[in-house]
Structure formats: structure tokens, C-alpha cells
């Protein structure tokens, strides 16, 4: 037999839960942001601690290794500078051709770097939290990427932090293109029954699809969220589903988000 005190506490919590479940979405997001804001001092402390550890580690690196690293970085920098010049020339050519054809002018994307401060506390979502928010100009639905490729898009945005919904989460679908075959599909979510968090399902491929393992997957630009041409991953295998009506493939994501500490947010 439950005591009266137990019943009262259950009733109060049930009532509170019902109120919270039925709140308008924007109000719930604001309350979440407010509660999440309480953790900001701890995130700041953790970042400061990490900086101290990093500087301590870099202080112990031998001078010879640093000089070698510097030489490598200089060589890489020169290569990238040449590629950037080629890219700029290609962009100018692209603009000229667009003007000739009378197509709409494409605005270049700007980049803002952000630090990953937290990951989802639940195992059934794939999200992380970064240290940029509305005060930095972020809004929901902006592409987020790392050096290896696209990792997701921004979700709820608070004043100083934002949620990033990673590829593989049911709330982040990406329209993609297999570069070698030109076939288009949609990345849906993580593959069922596998423990590799980098494997996601690519659906809506044509019935007679010719995708093969090792082929590369890029964003197609359809859907309006992600710009075209961002690398996403490579095909692992494919199979016919729905009694041969269409083909599904598994894609291994280019970026390993479990070790990501810094990301870039793209602005139109």
C-alpha cells in the first residue's frame, strides 16, 4: 500500500511532466536553454582545464619535433595557397558562365569555428553542443562540418551555445549524390543492428542502381539545407529492398564525430 506522501509526490511530478510535455515548442526550447545555461561555468572550467593540459603537453614536445611539424605545415600551406588560387579562378569562371547563362548568382559561404563542449546525455540521439549561439549569428539548420566532411546541422540555438544534430540521427536527413554514378538518394539514419556509429543508411536510390563499395558520397544540394559538393562518406555495400522496388546502401561517414573537438559552421 503506497503512503499518502508517495501519492502526492507522484501526482505533483505527473502534473509537472504533463505541463512540460504540452508546452509550446519555442517555450520548451527556451526553458531548456535556461537550464543548460546553468552548466556554462562548468563548461568554461573544463575548457580552461583542457587549455592548461594542452599547453602542458605542447611544452613537453621536443624542439626537433616542433621544427619538423613547422616545416610540414609550411609545405602544406604553400600547396593549399596554390589550390586556393586555382579555386578562386574557377569561381570567377563559374560566375562569368552564370552571368552568360543568366543564372542566379551564388553567394559564397562563410565559416565560423566552434568548440564542442558537450555530447548528448542519452544514448538514443546523436547530437552534440557547440560554443556558438544566436549572439554569434547562428540559427537552426546551418551545415556543420569538419576537415573530413559534413557531420550535421544546427538544431536548437541558445544565446551562447547550440545543438548540432549529427548525420545518423533521425532528425538529420541529408540529400546526397554518389559522385561516380550520379545517382541521388537520402541519408536516413544509423544502420540497424550494427555497433559502428559511422555506418548510416542511404535510401531512395533507383531500382537498378549501380553503386559499388568504395564510391564517394557528396551532398547534392537538394533540400536547401546543405550546399552541394560537401564530402559525406563512402559506399560500404548495397542491397535491393522492398521486393526489388528500390536499392539501399550503407555509407561509412568520412568524419568520426566521437573524437571531434572543433567544428566549422557554414553561413550563407
Amino acid at each position, binding site marked *: 500500500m*503506497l*503512503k499518502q*506522501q*508517495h501519492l502526492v*509526490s*507522484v501526482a*505533483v*511530478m*505527473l502534473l*509537472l*511532466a504533463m505541463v*512540460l*510535455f504540452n*508546452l509550446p515548442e519555442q517555450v*520548451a526550447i527556451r*526553458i*531548456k*536553454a535556461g*537550464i*543548460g545555461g*546553468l*552548466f556554462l561555468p*562548468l*563548461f568554461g572550467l*573544463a575548457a580552461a582545464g583542457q587549455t592548461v593540459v594542452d599547453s602542458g603537453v605542447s611544452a613537453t614536445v621536443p624542439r626537433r619535433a616542433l621544427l619538423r611539424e613547422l616545416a610540414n605545415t609550411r609545405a602544406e600551406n604553400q600547396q593549399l595557397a596554390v589550390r586556393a588560387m586555382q579555386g578562386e579562378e574557377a569561381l570567377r569562371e563559374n560566375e562569368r558562365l552564370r552571368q552568360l547563362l543568366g543564372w542566379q548568382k551564388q553567394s559564397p559561404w562563410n565559416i565560423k569555428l566552434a568548440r564542442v*563542449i*558537450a*555530447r*548528448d*546525455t*542519452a*544514448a*538514443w*540521439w*546523436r*547530437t552534440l*553542443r557547440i560554443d556558438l549561439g544566436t549572439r554569434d549569428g547562428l540559427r537552426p539548420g546551418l551545415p556543420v562540418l569538419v576537415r573530413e566532411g559534413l557531420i550535421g546541422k544546427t*538544431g536548437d540555438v541558445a544565446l551562447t551555445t547550440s*545543438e548540432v*544534430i549529427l548525420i*545518423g*540521427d*533521425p*532528425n538529420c536527413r541529408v540529400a546526397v549524390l554518389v559522385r561516380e554514378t550520379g545517382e541521388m538518394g537520402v541519408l536516413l*539514419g*544509423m544502420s*540497424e*543492428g*550494427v*555497433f559502428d*556509429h559511422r555506418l548510416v543508411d542511404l535510401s531512395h536510390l533507383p531500382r537498378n542502381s549501380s553503386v559499388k563499395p568504395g564510391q564517394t558520397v557528396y551532398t547534392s544540394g537538394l533540400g536547401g539545407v546543405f550546399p552541394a559538393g560537401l564530402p559525406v562518406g563512402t559506399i560500404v555495400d548495397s542491397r535491393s529492398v522492398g521486393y526489388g522496388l528500390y536499392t539501399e546502401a550503407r555509407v561509412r561517414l568520412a568524419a568520426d564525430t*566521437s*573524437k571531434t573537438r572543433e567544428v566549422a559552421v557554414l553561413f550563407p
Partner: protein
Amino acid sequence: MKEILINNALTFLLLLTAFVAVFLQAAWDFPRNLLGVPLNLLPPLMVFAAFRTGVTTISLLAGLGGLFTDALSANPLGVSMLPLLWVGLAIHHWRELILQEFAYARFIVGFIASAAAPLLTLIIIMTLGKRTLAGWAFVWQWMIMALTGGLLTPLSFWLLDAAAERLVPGPVVRPSFRPDREIKRGRY
């Protein structure tokens, strides 16, 4: 008065620990990368609260702990509160039947609590019509969460009991000596 002070201090300690635990759950990558799932630290805390405190503290821990968890997650706000409360109240209801002073009993209760809380949360999320990542691979993750929760429960008892002892000094034991009952030796 002393009892109230001890209870308030323990409640404050538990809520503070829950706050730090949720932060660690979100910001500490090492266990997540090692085990493949985030550590769920609130069920072990709830087991401690259910054995050592009353319904008010259990409700506060479930409410605030749940809100902290949901604030740093894509969970709908409030879904983690009710499972924690149910787990806490169930253990509190049967606390006198459980051999709570034994580490293996704490492990088993922690294991069950750490298995029940995420499962109930997931059921509520699905009832609300949200699509999650939970598939067959989740069964493995769920077992890891339950096992780590079970292992962390005796540890949380040890740490929180030690912290509570330092936070609130134990009651002063009055000696049986009374000056008016002193046996005076000598001539009368």
C-alpha cells in the same frame, strides 16, 4: 532540529552531485569512447537517495536531475523525471526488505535501477511519437548502461556517505557521567 539539518545538507549534497554528474555525463568523453555509451550516473544517485533520504528528496532529485539531463540532450523536456521518480519510490517503498548495507545488494539494486530508468524514458519518448536511434544495437548499450550503473552504485554510497559525514558532524554522544551523582570519597 539536528535531523532536519542533516536531511537538508544531504538533499543539497545530492542535488549538487546530480548537477555535476549530468555535466560529466555530457562533457567527459573518455567513458563514452571506451564503452560506446554515455555513463548514466543519476540512477546510482537515486538508489542512494531512496535508501538514505525521504520522499521529498527523492522527488527533488528526480525533478531537477531529470531536467538537467533533458537540458543537455535532444530528449523532450521532462521525460527523464518520471522514470527516475518511479525507480526512487519503488526502492524507497521496499528499502526495509533489501540488505542495503551489503555491496552486492547495492550492485543488484543499482543494476536494476540503471536498466529500468533508461528503458522507461525511452518508452515515454516513443509514446510521445518521437523517432529515436534505439534499435537492436541499443540492447547491448542498455546492458552496458545497467552494468556500469550497478558497479557505480556501491561506489556512490561510499563517496556520498563519506562526504555526508564531513558535511554534517555526527550527533554528540552524551556521557553517562553526572556531577551530582559523583561518588565523594572521604569522611562524612
